[in-house]
């Protein structure tokens, strides 16, 4: 009696020794009942192949296209020479990115003690819950965020025109830095700040999109610079409040 399991392997042409395969093939030729069982199994297994294709949501497919375009763009920019006057700015971005990375790693390796917010700090007029959350984080995290955000603010402010060959490279670095800040915010349990950073990304990507008009790029840049400036001001207010209290 040949088991159902062996018939399944026979159907798949996998997992059986050659001798076993021959044995089953011979039995199928001789045994009509076994043949019927196998036909039944085959048709049922074939029916199990009729799976529907689930279309990926449009925004996901768009993300995949964007990811490939971004990688390709980065590669092209790496090959292009960088203007000397931009080198200082690039090093600034790199240092800031490292700082963010340090905050993330530091948090993961040894979570920083969360400073207890003094009673008086709660009375500070903080217009945004993200600032409150951040305010509860360590002073090191606050300083790191301030430095990174002000660097990003400066980077956006000093971006060359979109026609400049280094524009894309600098923008991609700002995007990479933005992600690191977002990760640092997540690692430090500041979801509102993380959300804000995530909200920046589509705007930055739109700025990087070659089909975006220079007017729109300028408008996006103004918007981002404003948002970053506002966030920086709030962080500085919170930070000075915390320091005073501590």
């Amino acid at each position, binding site marked *: 009696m040949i088991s*159902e*399991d062996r018939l*399944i*392997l026979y159907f*798949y042409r*996998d*997992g059986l020794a050659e001798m076993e395969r021959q044995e089953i093939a011979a039995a199928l030729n001789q045994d009509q009942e076994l043949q019927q069982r196998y036909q039944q199994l085959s048709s*049922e*297994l074939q*029916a*199990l*192949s*009729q*799976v*529907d*294709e*689930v*279309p*990926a*949501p449009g925004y*996901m*497919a768009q*993300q*995949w*296209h964007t*990811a*490939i*375009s971004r*990688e*390709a763009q980065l*590669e*092209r920019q790496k090959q292009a020479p960088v203007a000397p006057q931009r080198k200082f700015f690039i090093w600034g971005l790199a240092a800031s990115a490292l700082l963010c990375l340090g905050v993330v790693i530091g948090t993961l390796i040894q979570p920083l003690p969360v400073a207890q917010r003094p009673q008086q700090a709660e009375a500070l007029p903080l217009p945004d819950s993200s600032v409150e959350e951040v305010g509860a984080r360590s002073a090191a995290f606050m300083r790191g965020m301030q430095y990174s955000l002000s660097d990003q603010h400066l980077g956006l402010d000093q971006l060359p025109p979109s026609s400049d060959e280094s524009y894309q490279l600098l923008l991609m670095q700002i995007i990479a830095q933005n992600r690191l800040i977002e990760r640092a915010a997540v690692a430090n349990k500041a979801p509102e700040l993380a959300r804000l950073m995530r909200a920046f990304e589509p705007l930055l990507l739109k700025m990087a999109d070659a089909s975006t008009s220079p007017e729109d790029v300028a408008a996006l840049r103004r918007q981002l610079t404003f948002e970053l400036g506002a966030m920086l001001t709030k962080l500085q207010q919170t930070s000075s409040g915390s320091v005073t209290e501590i």
Partner: protein
Amino acid sequence: MVANTESMQSLTESEFHQAIARSGDYWYSACLRITKNPQLAADAVQDALLNAWKKRHQFEQKALLTTWIHRIAVNSALSLLRSQHPERWTAEDIDVAADTIPQETLASSRQAAEQLNQAMTELTELERVCFTLKHLEQWRITEIAEELGSSANAIKQAVFRAVSKLRVSLADHRSE
């Protein structure tokens, strides 16, 4: 020479975009069958695309680009799934692990119209993954065992259980 290099690169980028347009849904569906989680499935496809892009110089048979990415995507989906519940995929326990399916997964899947999808919800995570890789992706049993860090026998048993459950489930549907 530079122009040649650039045109090759832009062609490759264009091929990737074409591959996404042509097979993105197919990759996503395969990853979704493994992960049962739309976000994980999308992440798996994106990981696969970026990996394939970075290693595209190692790839020579351009006619099979979509198949190559498909395979990487399935591997990524497996990695992401395993990283979500590593305890279900330890080598010692793999033949008995994951015998429970989260109720919310069952509940949401039962609402799906498609019979096979419904039947698949009756499988454990391990059974679903092994069945998908064997039956739908047509991997060899030894490949699955190697990928999941298990024995060929454990994989066979998972496939047998999956087939048995699916046959019963589909027979029930037919008789209703």
